[in-house]
């Protein structure tokens, strides 16, 4: 018999739980969930630490710097620390904690890591251009029925579907 502890939740149950969490988040904070914003805060903080003049002169970094608040003192930074902790707890309870490179048997670990690096690079840049990623722009934006949320969702998933054929050997 298969080890039950490694089983994932029913996806519709997971979806309802995530939807209720999003609703509670709106009710308490007036804003939704996010992910890429915390990475942006980290980059802003790092650049400001290494080259403060450059950061303050930049029209982009300077938007996220203020004199009375550390750039890491952001809602999304604390939320993402929570994601890491919550994921770890879930993984621990289900015996899924393991260092590994997950990849299709048809490609090597090295190929997978190169593709992951390219994907991260694109996702990082794209999330800044679009003012948010799958969490902050698409999911949260759709929950408030914002036009921006639906455009983001269709652009992300539409492109991934159209490009899927060309990248199939990396996955199937």
């Amino acid at each position, binding site marked *: 018999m298969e080890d039950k502890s490694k089983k994932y*939740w029913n*996806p519709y149950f*997971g979806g309802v739980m995530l*939807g*209720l*969490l*999003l609703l509670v988040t*709106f*009710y308490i*904070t*007036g804003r939704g*969930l996010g992910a*890429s914003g915390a*990475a942006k805060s*980290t980059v802003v903080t790092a*650049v400001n630490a290494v080259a403060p003049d450059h950061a303050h002169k930049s*029209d*982009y970094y300077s938007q996220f710097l203020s004199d009375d608040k550390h750039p890491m003192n952001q809602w999304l930074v604390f*939320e993402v620390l*929570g*994601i*890491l902790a*919550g*994921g*770890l707890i879930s*993984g621990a309870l*289900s015996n*899924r904690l*393991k*260092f590994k*490179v997950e*990849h299709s048997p048809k490609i090597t670990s090295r190929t997978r*890591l190169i593709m*992951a690096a390219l994907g*991260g690079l*694109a996702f*990082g*840049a794209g*999330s*800044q*251009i679009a*003012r948010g*990623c799958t969490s*902050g722009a698409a*999911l949260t934006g759709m*929950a*408030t*029925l*914002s*036009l*921006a949320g639906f*455009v983001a969702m269709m*652009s*992300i998933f539409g*492109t*991934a579907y159209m*490009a*899927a054929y060309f990248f*199939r050997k990396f996955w*199937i």
Partner: protein
Amino acid sequence: MGPLIPLGIIGENWNNLIALLIGMAFGFILESSGFSSSRKLAGVFYGYDFVVLKVFFTAATTAAVGLLYFSYLGWIDMSLVYINPAYIPSTVVGGVIMGLGFIMGGYCPGTSYCAVSIGKIDAMVFSVSMFVGIFVFSEAYPLLENFYNAGFLGSPTVYESLGLSAGIFILALILIALGAFVMAHFVERKVKKVDY
């Protein structure tokens, strides 16, 4: 009446602790739903596993219906809720780039953090690389600034933009979601299973 923090019912100094707790629930739900596996996530694009479609669409409709009811019952003041601003050109181009990132990398930012937390090395590479991507954009910002701020429409809702009422739009959204779930069920049965 909500939202609680913008209305001062819960003090601003609780904000970061609440963020941490909400994040923990977010990470727990994502991991428990299988979003810490890139091969499971990528299944939605090849038809062997529609977990992304099921979780994402269910969550968005659940929250949207909830917000509509909360607003209707006077439990939440939607004018204090953050509505994403619409800059269509930059959202489309950023979305296209993210779509390519998704099919190459197999994660999005939130799911990559989640996968990092259980030890996925590919997710660690994805996350670190994401910081580099953000840095590259930030340094190139002077060149992109005009495009980044082009086509601003305020923060319209999608139903206003389509000339529909909120109720009719949500009903249509739910019917589309149900149709997508039925389709996913049949496609998953036809497509060869992938072990991961």
